[in-house]
């Protein structure tokens, strides 16, 4: 009913004929001229959150602007023969990076965007290289520069004694490759410019024309710390394209493994936060739990990072009910030790001092930047795809969504702990209620498109595929949670001191590999 009301309102205001999809979402075809107006109406009048932009080059250009309404995904579809579209970033900042990426990868000109240019592809690429365009040879070797990077973003801070400090991409211990430029007058970081895509492997470009099985390998391996989530999201997209419903047991087992992944991911994030504050014992305690979860995962599924399980149609292998129950019990024990850690941390004032009132993101900022996952939930935005677009039986599980209001580092930590606790509870509930049956439905590939989503550990993850007539993957797009949250990271770090920077970074639990793709 919600989507019908929305459709009626948009029809009245813009004269567009919206269509309700099988998954309960809404497709809103709209002209390029109306695009900005429709998007803004959704964002401001109907409180929809911007979810991402999917670009397709197919007989001209098709843009799908995705929004989350309260209970559905809204796709605003606009078409044009030429790669020119109006920019909506000035009205909803969340679209900023999506438009920049599309400009860089597809060569689409977004009129009115204040800051286009080098983004995904770094300066070593010749002007006009658009790897996502049809006809781009993904096998051609990349240019390899000998000269140091000439990247010099315009300095924003003008103050006596101001300077900019470069960090990375190879910077600290065992970290992903990210480059930061921090503008400061000393002590306080006034502006943060993260430069990402050092791990850009062009997975969406090289997937083109590959078999579903081959693309599944990419979906599973482009980000190793949330691999099951993305493999599931991709599988769900393929299933949607082929009109296949997975067996209930497979859906429940997927949820079970996804919660195991979330528990491990959050434990790792907590480990990261503890070690960023230099609290060695707490970091070790969290690291022990993380390793135990990895071993538990390997014991249950044969892989420490849960690779090789999700396939379109269900799961590659069945898991024994007893094994699942035992795993759930062990995970429950680990979660209880995690609670003990949480209690100890809450009593360590030196630890809290580094997190409380540090790295604040307000609810309004989180909304405007379209932040997702635990980061958004710590700033008062309790959107969780497991609840608003339930899948895999989550609707029956009575999921309790963690939410905090402060938006500071401690709020993010509390959300992580709460979600880990909830995951352990779900594991038990799922293991106790596993239905019998097959875990795999046969996939009959057919031409078409499909949207698949999951609530990955880092937040909402959406995959979109178009399959060829011969069943190969024609197009594949990922909207990973880290892309949204990296965009907003600077909000948290700005205005705080240098020494807070690594801590704030740790509380965001970001994955560069997931963002870079």
């Amino acid at each position, binding site marked *: 009913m919600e989507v019908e009301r929305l459709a009626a309102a948009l029809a009245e205001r813009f004269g567009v004929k919206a269509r309700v999809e099988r998954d309960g979402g809404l497709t809103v075809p709209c002209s390029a001229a109306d695009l900005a107006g429709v998007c803004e109406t959704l964002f401001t009048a109907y409180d929809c959150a911007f979810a991402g932009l999917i670009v397709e080059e197919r007989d001209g250009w098709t843009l799908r602007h995705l929004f989350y309404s309260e209970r559905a995904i809204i796709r605003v579809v606009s078409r044009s023969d030429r790669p020119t579209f109006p920019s909506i*970033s*000035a*009205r909803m*900042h969340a679209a*900023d990076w999506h438009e920049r990426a599309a400009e860089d990868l597809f060569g689409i000109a977004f009129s009115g965007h*204040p*800051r286009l240019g080098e983004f995904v592809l770094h300066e070593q690429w010749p002007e006009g290289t658009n790897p996502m365009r049809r006809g781009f040879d993904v096998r051609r070797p990349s240019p390899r520069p000998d000269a*140091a*990077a000439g*990247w010099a973003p315009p*300095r*924003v*801070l*003008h*103050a*006596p*004694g*101001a*300077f*900019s*400090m*470069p*960090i*990375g*991409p*190879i*910077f600290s211990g065992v970290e992903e*490759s990210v*480059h930061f430029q921090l503008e*400061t*007058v*000393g*002590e*306080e970081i*006034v*502006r943060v410019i993260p430069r990402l895509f050092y791990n850009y492997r062009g997975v969406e470009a090289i997937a083109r024309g590959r078999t579903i099985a081959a693309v599944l390998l990419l979906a599973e391996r482009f980000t190793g710390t949330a691999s099951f989530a993305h493999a599931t999201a991709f599988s769900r997209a393929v299933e949607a394209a082929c009109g296949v419903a997975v067996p209930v047991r497979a859906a429940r087992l997927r949820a079970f493994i996804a919660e195991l992944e979330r528990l491990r991911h959050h434990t790792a994030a907590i480990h990261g936060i503890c070690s960023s504050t230099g609290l060695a014992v707490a970091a070790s305690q969290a690291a022990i739990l993380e390793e135990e979860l990895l071993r538990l995962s390997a014991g249950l599924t044969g892989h420490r990072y849960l690779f090789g399980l999700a396939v379109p149609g269900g799961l590659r292998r069945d898991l024994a009910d007893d094994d699942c129950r035992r795993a759930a019990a062990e995970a429950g024990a680990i979660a209880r030790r995690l609670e003990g850690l949480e209690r100890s941390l809450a009593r360590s004032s030196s630890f809290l001092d580094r997190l409380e009132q540090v790295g604040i993101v307000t609810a309004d900022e989180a909304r*405007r*930047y379209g932040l997702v996952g635990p980061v958004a939930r710590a700033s008062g935005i309790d959107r969780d795809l497991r609840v608003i677009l339930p899948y895999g039986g989550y609707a029956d599980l009575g999921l309790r969504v963690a939410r905090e209001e402060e938006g500071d580092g401690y709020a993010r930590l509390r959300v992580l702990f709460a979600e880990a606790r909830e995951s352990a509870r779900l594991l038990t509930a799922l293991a106790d209620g596993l239905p019998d049956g097959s875990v795999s439905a046969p996939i009959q590939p057919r031409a078409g498109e499909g949207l698949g989503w999951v609530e990955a550990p880092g937040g909402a993850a959406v995959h979109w595929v178009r399959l060829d007539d011969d069943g190969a993957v024609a197009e594949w797009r990922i909207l990973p949670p880290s892309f949204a949250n990296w965009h907003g990271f600077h909000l948290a770090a700005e205005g705080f001191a240098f020494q807070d920077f690594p801590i704030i970074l740790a509380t965001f639990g970001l994955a560069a590999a997931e963002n870079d793709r």
Partner: protein
Amino acid sequence: MIALVLAFLGVIVAGMAVVLALPDRYVPRAVAAIGSVAAVLAMWVSGAALFAGNELHVGLWTIPGLGRIVLGLDRMGALFVFAAGLVFLPVSIFSAGYLPRFRGHYSLRAFGAWYLAMFGSIAFIPGCGDVLSFLVVWELMSITSYLLVVYEHERDESAHAGWLMLVISEAGTLAAAVGLLVLAVHAGSLEFAAIRAGNGGIGDGARWAVFLLSFFGFGVKAGLFPFNLWLPHAHPAAPGNVSALLSGVILNVGIYGIVRVNIDLLPPIGVGPGLVVMGIGAVTALVGILYATVEDDLKRMLAHSSIENMGIVAVGLGAGMTFLAAGRPTLGAIAFVAAFYHMVNHSVYKGLLFLGAGTVDATVGTRSMDRLGGLIHRLPWTGLAFLVGALSISALPPFNGFASEWLTLQSILRSVELSAIGVKAAFAVAGAILALTAALAVTAFVKAFAMTFLGHARSPEAERANRAPRALIAPMLILAALCLTLGVTPTYVIPTIDRAVGEYTHASATDALVPPFFLTTAADTRGLPAGFVADFHDLGAQTGRSFLPGRGLVVLHRGGKENPVVYAMSPAYTLIVLLLMLGLTAGTVWLLAARRRRVARGEEWAGGVRRLAPEMTYTATGFSQPVRVIFQAIFHPTVEEESREAAAGYFRLAIRRVQRDVYLPERLVFRPLARLAAGISAGCARMHNGKLNAYAAYVFIALIVVIAVGIIVR
């Protein structure tokens, strides 16, 4: 002796004439030659008094109605003249290389004449034996130094700074003059000797008045809190060589005034004045070093640091005065020695640092440390000399700052021997402040040296800096050598200064501090436990007996029987051990490693993809930002500009932020004074309402007041 004085006077006067007659082209070298000769003569005369005891006391002529003009140079005065000579000699040589930059723009002849005149007046101030000549020569010094500060009169900065300095220091001089006149009136004579002889009956109120007037009056010149607003403006605004003199010499003259009146002429009043001096000194030191730490202008930073050092000197003086008043003359003597030792040291290293800053300014064209950096490659000798100065001022052994600052702190710790709890507490607070000051001084000078000479050049000017001519480098190296010499020879410096202050303390710091270790006769070891003497000889304290003159190289404060050694140090032995250890380490490393391994040189590591650009390195402002944040309550920065521009929403184009630290004395004293003055003027202005009746009323009221006063007075 008097002949030498006349020769000095002749060199100054004739030199002025010569300089005025010469074409500008030859003036720099003439100034250098004449200034050097005059400096040598001044040191000769003062040296004779200081080292050999040939004090001067000559009545010149009598001015009817005012009294006799007296030329008198005692050891105390000679100390100041000698210290002035120590700075004037290298600065004069420096001028030969420094002055040509002004040629064709400002008159070099005028500079030369004022320069010599200022030297003459400074050298004569400690030689004035009466109030009248003292005030006249003092004014001469004030005016010539003003003229030298505003030498680059086309720069607004110079003109404004000179004016500020003149106004504030004249006010101070007026206060000090009143104090001197109170003494003179009481003694019935303008001669210092007569004042000294006839000061017995001054009442306590008058003593306090004289103390406060002279301390704060001369304190203006010495840069003491809170009337030092002018100093951070005037010192950097002056040409480089003049800055060195302002900080290295003229500040001392202010101290001289305080010392002459309060230690020599005015009989003690109890511990009060000493504690006031110490308290003001501590506050001066802390405020000075705080502003020095966050300052970006290299010369202004040095000026703030001069304030800090004058504060340390004042703490030493105050401690000495307190000890004397509390009946501990030996401790008083030690504190005085520490204070004057520090003053001389400050003259030397601050002269050095200002010459270094002047060289940087002259070769780069900017004094902003944010825009300097990497100069060690272009100015290696300047960098080395500046480093020695920075180490000295940071009180690191074996350089001179360490010896005197250590002695000052030790003196303060001896407050345990006092009995009054309040006094002890005051000493403890002053000591704590001094310790904090010392730590901040290291921060400040790490910044000054590193941001100027190390790292990347942060501006094209710094990258293209000219090389420094030898005439600029030689004087800095002389001063650097002096820093080391004064640092490792405290056992020679202490007795010299002790003889100068001994006239007032009537106690020997030398005997208390520099035991005669070289002599093993019974007379020398009298009062010392035999075991202790043996122990010290075993430690090698007598090493060098056969070739070292004097009392050896160990400073040691003797206590009672229970603790024979209260504190001890020997920068000379420290230096020797330091060199041995360095040599040993270097030799070991060379033996073990260097011969077999090749040194590979590569680009700086900057994270992988970028080359480190100058604008990506720490600026001076950035380096000191934590101090600014911690002490925000003192700096009280005013935001002059704070703006954000955005293209749309969160697309930011610019964040502009300009803050200015408000100088504490300006906020606490001068702004309220200015507001008060403005308020009074506004009140007066309101009286001028243009109504005839009102004016008639004013005249009538005034008349009544005058009559009433007349009646009361009669």
